């Protein structure tokens, strides 16, 4: 075991962790909006809209994240027409390709988490609102959304942790995130065990933080039903 290599690689890996956190936070923000949008579409009574939203979550939850990244990065890059459009400005950059793939992926899971949270809201809450004459828009923003967020906290916490680990796939499209830099150090030192232990430790620490923040939020805002 090369302890010196572990110590030397730690600052480099920590630096790369910033890219990992950036990928994670940006994708989660986009994913949350996408997820909320599609959760609302899923509850629409129009069959076509409903099917469309279901199809989206079905496709992105049913295919590996790696395949999605490859289709967006290498696949779309092969379409010559696309390279002449303004879309190429975004798709040319590996960073944005990764963000698009991660956001669409986490958006699909988030939409399912939120949909089930909305659907478990007891009808009594909505009826109470309506009987008080509260407009349905206000019922949605002030009653349904807050309850849904509370309901979905545990499942969403899991999704954040899964996404954190998912960002390691960014290294497959040339991004130097935590995994990418770990692989790079290994490629020059040929010592995978030491470097992956340090990188794994950093992932584990981030998971520990996320897990505890969610636990705290659950305690503070969640309720037992």
């Amino acid at each position, binding site marked *: 075991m090369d302890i010196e290599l572990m110590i030397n690689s730690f600052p480099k890996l920590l630096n790369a962790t910033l890219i990992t956190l950036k990928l994670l936070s940006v994708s989660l923000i986009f994913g949350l909006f996408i997820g909320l949008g599609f959760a609302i579409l899923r509850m629409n009574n129009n069959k076509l809209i409903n099917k469309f939203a279901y199809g989206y979550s079905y496709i992105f939850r049913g295919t590996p994240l790696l395949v999605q990244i490859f289709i967006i990065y*290498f696949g779309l*890059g092969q379409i010559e027409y696309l390279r002449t459009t303004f879309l190429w400005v975004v798709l040319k950059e590996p960073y944005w390709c990764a963000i698009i793939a991660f956001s669409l992926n986490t958006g699909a899971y988030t939409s399912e988490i939120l949909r089930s949270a909305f659907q478990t809201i007891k009808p009594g809450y909505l009826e109470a609102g309506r009987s008080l004459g509260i407009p349905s828009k206000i019922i949605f923003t002030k009653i349904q959304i807050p309850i849904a967020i509370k309901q979905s906290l545990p499942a969403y916490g899991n999704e954040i942790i899964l996404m954190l680990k998912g960002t390691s796939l960014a290294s*497959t499209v*040339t991004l130097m995130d935590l995994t990418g830099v770990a692989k*790079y150090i*290994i490629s*020059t030192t*040929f010592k995978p065990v030491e470097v992956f232990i340090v990188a794994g430790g950093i992932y584990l620490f981030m998971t520990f933080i996320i897990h505890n923040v969610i636990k705290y939020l659950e305690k503070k805002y969640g309720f037992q039903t």
Partner: protein
Amino acid sequence: MKKLKVLGLGILISSFLTISSIADQIKIGTEGAYPPWNSKDSAGNLIGFEVELANELCKIMNHDCTIVEQDWDGMIPALVSRKFDAIMAGMSITGERMKTINFSQGYADEVASLAVMKGSKNEGLKTMSAINLSDVSADEQATLDVLTKAFKGKTIGVQTATIHQNFLESGLMGNVKIRTYKTQDEVNLDLSAGRIDAALAAAVAFTDYAEKSGKGVVLTGPTFAGGDFGNGVGVGIRKGDSKLLNDFNAAIDKARDDGIISKLAIKHFGFDASM
């Protein structure tokens, strides 16, 4: 009971020992993604210059060989952790790698070159046709200066953990943005998609891709040898495995004398890259 256990263990261990000594079996690791050195056909069988050469060398050594596939970036760790016994994967003999593993004598020359897309400003750069970095002359320095100017701030793609990456990182070509890929296929894809301005790899890796894909990938600038580019391609072998190393060295001598290496090189590269 304890004695019985020890006895059982002894029998188990000795049976393993006899198995490994009866069949003189060795495993050779290759990438299978670096045509024409080594690649796969549409059915998934390993093919290419090194796959055929490995079989010829094994015939000479009278070893029973299996060729296994391994991702490039894990090639040396896999050899060290005994996933296989030898590497034949277009791997150049460099001082950096020699710190971890041994190499047989070289069996072929890998000529590196830059490639750009047709119509690029850097197509057909006026430079020397070949430079050797072991001993840089004034003319060669002038060529490096031309490259430094032409590719200043440009993004150049390379496969990760290669001599090509080491060369770009050495700064001899000045300030370029390096983008590293897991396989050469991915470098070629991004070069033809226009995500990177140029790429650096074995010249034959580009000409082979241009021919098979019909994409306008063209070589530009000089070919590189020496220095970071190492001293030819050899068989990577674990340190301490001196018997296997000697076997390979003798087999390469024989294959060279019999003209086998030249014949295979001409078949796969179109020219005699044997050494």
